[in-house]
């Protein structure tokens, strides 16, 4: 058994290179980015990622590989959450007000979207909520509507990371979230029709 370990498996070495890249990266790395840095084919990098995932998983290691925000990244094992919370504060966790959450939802689903558009949907000015989310790095500028129009905002990779989403398509379907909307609408229209009569 011992002698087998001395035979170098080339995927093993590639896996170690991927581990090295992930530990120095400051954002999730896509398969393409990893492949470019390794000067390898994407397919082999994916095989290596499988190896890394089996080494760095919950229960086996304090460092865990996750697929998030369109790429791969290391994070802390969940079992160590209490110790992590004593070391660093989760800045995002604190103080996301209802206004901030609603604004974030509008930007996540409709982005890129401007402040006036957000205000129209929420029925209140969105300036401070938008500024707060920009400051936390959850949303960022995404150019202007047209040349010189209002600045539009979209969610950042940090948003996906904080909420543990592989990408925005993991957001639930809006209509499924609010099933009572149609009923509400017909009720209001009903009332209006009777008063109008």
């Amino acid at each position, binding site marked *: 058994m011992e002698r087998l370990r001395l035979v170098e498996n080339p995927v093993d070495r590639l896996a170690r290179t991927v581990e090295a890249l992930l*530990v*120095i*990266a*400051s954002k999730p790395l896509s398969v393409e980015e990893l492949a470019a840095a390794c000067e390898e084919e994407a397919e082999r990098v994916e095989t290596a990622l499988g190896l890394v995932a089996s080494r760095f998983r919950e229960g086996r290691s304090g460092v865990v590989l996750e697929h998030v925000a369109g790429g791969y990244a*290391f*994070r*802390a094992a*969940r079992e*160590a*959450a209490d110790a992590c919370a004593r070391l*660093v504060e*989760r*800045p995002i*966790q604190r103080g*996301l007000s*209802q206004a901030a*959450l*609603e604004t*974030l*939802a*509008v930007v*996540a689903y409709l982005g890129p979207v401007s402040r*006036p558009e957000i*205000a*129209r*949907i*929420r*029925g*209140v*000015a969105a300036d401070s909520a938008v500024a707060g989310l920009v400051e936390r790095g959850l949303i960022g500028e995404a150019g*202007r*509507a*047209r*040349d*010189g*129009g*209002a600045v539009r905002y979209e969610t950042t990779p*940090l948003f996906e990371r*904080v*909420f*543990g989403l592989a990408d925005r398509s993991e*957001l*639930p379907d*809006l*209509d499924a*979230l*609010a099933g009572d*909307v*149609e009923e*509400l*609408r017909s*009720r*209001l*229209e009903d*009332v*209006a*029709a*009777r*008063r*109008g009569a």
Partner: protein
Amino acid sequence: MAVAVRELPLDLDAFEGPFDLLLTLVLREELELRDVDVAEIVVAFVERLAERQALDLEACGEFLVLAAALLELKARGLFPDEELDLEGLDPEEAAEELAERLAAYRRFRAAAGWLEERLEAESDRFFRLGPAPLAPVPARPVARQEPAQLAGALRALAAARPEPSLGHLVLTYPPVSRFLDRFRDLLSSRGRFAFDREVDRLSRIEQIVAFLALLELRKQGEAQIAQAGPFEPITVWNASAS
């Protein structure tokens, strides 16, 4: 069992208390309407409505009109430069518009709830924010850029066109100016009038617009307003005569 619109309890970011107190505070300009979440008020009302068995048409009608008026007031505050189309109002259209806005808002409120739960569920996920301690120092030379980009960016900033018209999203009303003119005439001829008597034969929508005109006159310092209490008769008199 009637749903008392005026006593509807509200718990908003900017205000907590009954609906009529909110209206009074807005009337006295002690509460910034831009801070008031009208959709939340509508949600509170509909939820209250859903608790009752019978549908109270009178209460619904009163509420619809008041909520629509608040929305219009807000819309003006949010888009002050917007030229509103103030032609005649079809109550059905108004309600449809209200329902539309409410439906959109409800969806995003539900999405916000989902995000909140997700954040809670992921509260034991920790990852590094910022660079790794022993990572090689990045050297990121900015690639060569074209100076014309700079001029283009500045020209675009200087030539900004206004936002697309949001007029179609705002409820339509008879013109406020009609009531402004009429009240100004009354103030200069009689010096004083009872608001309720002047609007008593008008439709609810016209009453609301007249009320907006009254607020405007007070804001401009042209009129003084007195009211013994919420929903008591409103007396208006010429500010310069007092």
